[in-house]
């Protein structure tokens, strides 16, 4: 005992400290508890598209975790994914007309299955199937809807060009889509500043298929979403004459700058704030 080397205590301390650090890393900074405990019962749900859903992804009701995805399989010969949900036994009173939807946490987060209870009196039995499902929204599809690129604009069978003049085109650049009713019908061919009229002359290249656009249509520079790219929107008019090669769109609406918009909010805000004060003064 008296021969105990002095370094042994220090070494023991070092080892204990190392394991304490490991325990700290493993329990305090990670999600160990994210696995379901206790008895579960499973229900099936068939989805047309599961997106990025993974096994062990959470199943939530009203945003609260009630279980997890047990397995994801594709039945041979079918085009729907068979997703088995392991739900905590406590939450077994699920109406049989419940809708299962694949949601994404936040904009770019992981996907999970959200259950929205129906109004049916009958509850779903063990191994039952959720008939009502909504597939995952693919980000690509949503972006496609915003930007509207692709399809029509890419396979130009031939196009004709029209001009439009804007006092401000914002961040519009050559190649940006031209849309009508939200669908891409062409692209911006060139953007140049007019040295005489001091405005921007934009040349639009529109697919020949869309040659029935009235010549009093209006062109506007819009932004896709809040921070998206800008595009030219064509708002059809009522004239019986159609746009032809080389025509000019007379009615235009320039790009709204986000600074202007915010300015408008701020300026609009202040008078309404003052109104009650004016009213008080009149009384």
């Amino acid at each position, binding site marked *: 005992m008296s021969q105990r080397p002095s370094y042994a205590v220090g070494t023991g301390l070092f*080892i204990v400290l190392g394991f304490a650090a490991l325990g700290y*890393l493993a329990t305090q900074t990670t999600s160990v508890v994210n696995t379901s405990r206790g008895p579960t019962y499973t229900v099936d749900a068939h989805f047309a598209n599961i997106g990025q859903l993974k096994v062990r992804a959470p199943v939530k009701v009203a945003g609260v975790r009630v279980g997890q995805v047990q397995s994801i399989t594709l039945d041979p010969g079918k085009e729907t994914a068979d997703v088995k949900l392991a739900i905590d036994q406590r939450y077994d009173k699920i109406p049989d007309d419940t809708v299962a939807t694949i949601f994404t946490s936040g904009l770019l987060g992981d996907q999970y299955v959200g259950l929205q209870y129906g109004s049916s009196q009958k509850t779903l039995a063990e191994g039952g199937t959720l008939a009502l499902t909504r597939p995952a929204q693919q980000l690509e599809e949503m972006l496609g809807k915003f930007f509207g690129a692709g399809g029509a604009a890419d396979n130009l069978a031939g196009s004709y060009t029209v001009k439009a003049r804007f006092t401000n085109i914002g961040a519009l650049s050559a190649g940006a889509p031209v849309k009508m009713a939200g669908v891409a019908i062409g692209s911006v061919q060139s953007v140049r500043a007019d040295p005489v009229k001091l405005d921007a002359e934009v040349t639009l290249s529109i697919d020949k298929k869309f040659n029935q656009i009235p010549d009093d249509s209006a062109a506007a520079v819009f932004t896709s979403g809040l921070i998206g790219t800008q595009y030219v929107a064509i708002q059809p008019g009522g004239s019986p004459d159609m746009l032809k090669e080389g025509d000019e769109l007379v009615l235009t609406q320039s790009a709204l700058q986000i600074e202007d918009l915010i300015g408008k909010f701020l300026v609009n805000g202040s008078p309404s704030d003052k109104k009650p004060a004016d009213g008080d003064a009149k009384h």
Partner: protein
Amino acid sequence: MSLSMTRDNIVLRSLEQIGNCGLFLLRMLAAVPRSLRHYRETIRQLWFVGAMSLIIIMVCGLFVGMVLGLQLYDVLSIFGGTSATGTVVAIAIYRELGPVVTALLFAGRAGTSVTAEIGLMRATDQIAAMEMMAVDPIAYVAVPRFLAGVIAMPLLSCVFCALGIFGGHLVGVNWLGIDNGTFWSNMTATVEVGKDVINGVLWKSFVFGIVVSLIAVFQGYTTPPTSEGVAYATTRTVVASSIAILALDFVLTAFLM
């Protein structure tokens, strides 16, 4: 002609070196059961390479975490995403910086001293004396230092990571004003035990521990018995360990991801 000869020699010599190193590892592994009798020596070495490295590892971990917190806060505030600082600090430290920086520090702090110690034993004929006294120098000198390094590396790596997280928290929450709850909840929601702590910290640092200890012990054991030889061996330990750590880090990441 002479150029091709020297190139030949370099290739042959490095192949020979790698081969000898592998054989040395096998000899050490074979000697592990015999060295269990000298467990006190292993503990003494664990004290020397592990516990004595603790201060430098802790200080460096703290500063690495702090600078990560500072840089990430600066960049993430462009996107209004400063609440992700904790997550990114934790993931960067667990997956890469923790094991790699610990291994580099370990090679510099403990590897060199092991090489120099064994090299001097060789140069002053202590190893020959052991052989004469029928004490297996591999079991008594090499294996305890090797085992100590393999055991100490993952533990040091964990300490480094814990201090790194603490440093990131110190800068992010206490100085720059990220919300404490957001910092931790974002971190715990993203970091996974299996992928980040076990694969990232433990496996990597275990492999690094084997490689760094092997290189250090091997270089010391095979050094030419001169003072110049010991100096070269010490340098080679640091150079070879650093290259091996960084190259292996890539390979391990590719495998463990």
